[in-house]
């Protein structure tokens, strides 16, 4: 632990705090979003410094790949006045820029009284938290147990062993949460189905060249990360998000994917990962073993199979998040979307 290491850590931490502060106090939504994206990048540095490259990979995939895109796409929606506009004058887009201001008339985060009260409360809470964290013992963890059982887990990378074997139940539920969020998004979106993007223009020459080059690279990277997960940082989730990024890229280029896919395939794609895990769990139960217990001599193979299924399903679901939210029909919604024709309905 040299002085320069400490300085680096302190700068990263200060940057994190400043970015978080600016993200929350920015008056423009766009500013907020960019600060947040920068926050995600800085977080990746923090993960790296804490010797958690797996987490850094996940953060990279999420921040740069999925969440950033979802945020930017949502900004577009909020920048435009709603089409119904029944009961309110919406926040006026700034004339120069299609940025959104967050209610200038009552600037909430910046108002003096609220800030002082909240600041005092925050400082107190921060003091309590930091003091409590400081009291935690300097050592401990389950490293020893994990190292001891690593050889029986079927993989060599400890984090993958925990994710897919020791605590596979959590990971199963995690894949389930993605599926669940998709169902939730269907509910929130009023179920009008996938359709082309709002911008079906053909991509320019440069963009189409980029896509032709980048999409295969992304898919190969995903496969690499999936395979790598057995030995080193990498794994199903990171690979899945990269696959989703391929879909997002193609969709942004105006290449229709989701609206051409048959409904059955969509449903299978969404449930594939969650289902594969479950099937292995039930097989284990029927074989008089514990739920999600893998046969020890085949554990590596089963894990790879389950991971591949999970990666494909995660990729498909994460792409579906974006594709569904970005669908054209979405913006024509008014109170009656509920009665939309059921033919396009993805959940049927």
């Amino acid at each position, binding site marked *: 632990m040299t002085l320069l290491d400490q300085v680096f850590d302190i700068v990263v931490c200060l940057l994190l705090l400043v970015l978080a502060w600016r993200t*929350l106090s920015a008056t423009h939504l766009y500013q907020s979003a960019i600060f947040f994206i920068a926050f995600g990048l800085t977080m990746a540095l923090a993960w790296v410094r*804490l010797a958690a490259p797996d987490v850094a990979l996940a953060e990279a995939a999420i921040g740069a790949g999925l969440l950033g895109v979802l945020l930017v796409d949502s900004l577009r929606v909020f920048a435009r006045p709603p089409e119904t506009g029944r009961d309110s004058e919406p926040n006026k887009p700034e004339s120069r820029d299609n940025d959104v201001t967050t209610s200038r008339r009552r600037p909430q985060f910046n108002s003096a009284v609220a800030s002082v009260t909240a600041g005092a409360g925050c400082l107190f809470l921060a003091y309590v938290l930091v003091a409590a964290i400081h009291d935690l013992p300097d050592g401990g963890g389950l490293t020893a147990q994990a190292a001891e059982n690593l050889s029986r887990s079927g993989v060599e990378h400890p984090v993958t062993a925990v994710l897919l074997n020791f605590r596979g139940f959590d990971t199963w539920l995690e894949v389930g949460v993605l599926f669940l969020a998709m169902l939730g998004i269907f509910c929130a979106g009023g179920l009008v189905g996938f359709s082309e993007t709002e911008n079906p223009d053909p991509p320019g020459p440069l963009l189409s060249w980029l896509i032709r080059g980048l999409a295969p690279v992304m898919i190969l990277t995903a496969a690499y990360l999936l395979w790598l997960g057995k030995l080193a940082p990498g794994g199903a989730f990171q690979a899945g998000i990269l696959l989703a990024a391929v879909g997002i890229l193609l969709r942004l280029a105006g290449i229709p994917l989701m609206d051409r896919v048959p409904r059955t395939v969509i449903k299978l794609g969404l449930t594939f990962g969650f289902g594969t895990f479950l099937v292995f769990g039930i097989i284990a139960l029927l074989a008089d073993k514990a739920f999600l217990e893998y046969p020890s001599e085949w554990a590596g193979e089963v894990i790879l199979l389950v991971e591949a299924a999970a990666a494909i399903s995660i990729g498909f679901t994460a792409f579906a998040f974006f594709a569904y939210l970005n669908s054209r029909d979405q913006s024509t919604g008014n109170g009656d979307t509920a009665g939309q024709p059921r033919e396009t309905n993805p959940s049927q």
Partner: protein
Amino acid sequence: MIAEIESHQIYAGTAGILFCLGLAGLFMCGHFLKKIIATKILGTSVFLLLVSLANRNQMEFADPVPHAMVITGIVVAVSASAFALALARRIWKETGRSTFEDNP
């Protein structure tokens, strides 16, 4: 002067402060989008604490259990954010509201 401070301690302390910032943001920010971002910051702070705890005693590798927990947590948090974004966007389109207050 700061010679005895380990990097995981610096990050753990930052996690505590970030948690408060996220919480304050969640309560004080009006716009849905910023509230959603605030929940993300809140989540990140918790993950930061977990990972810095994992880094306390480096044996041959850092404690993998918190790392796995954080990866699970990141997926869960992103799913929840995507769902929240979907809700916020639909509300905006249907009613023109972008905050919980009745007159935006």
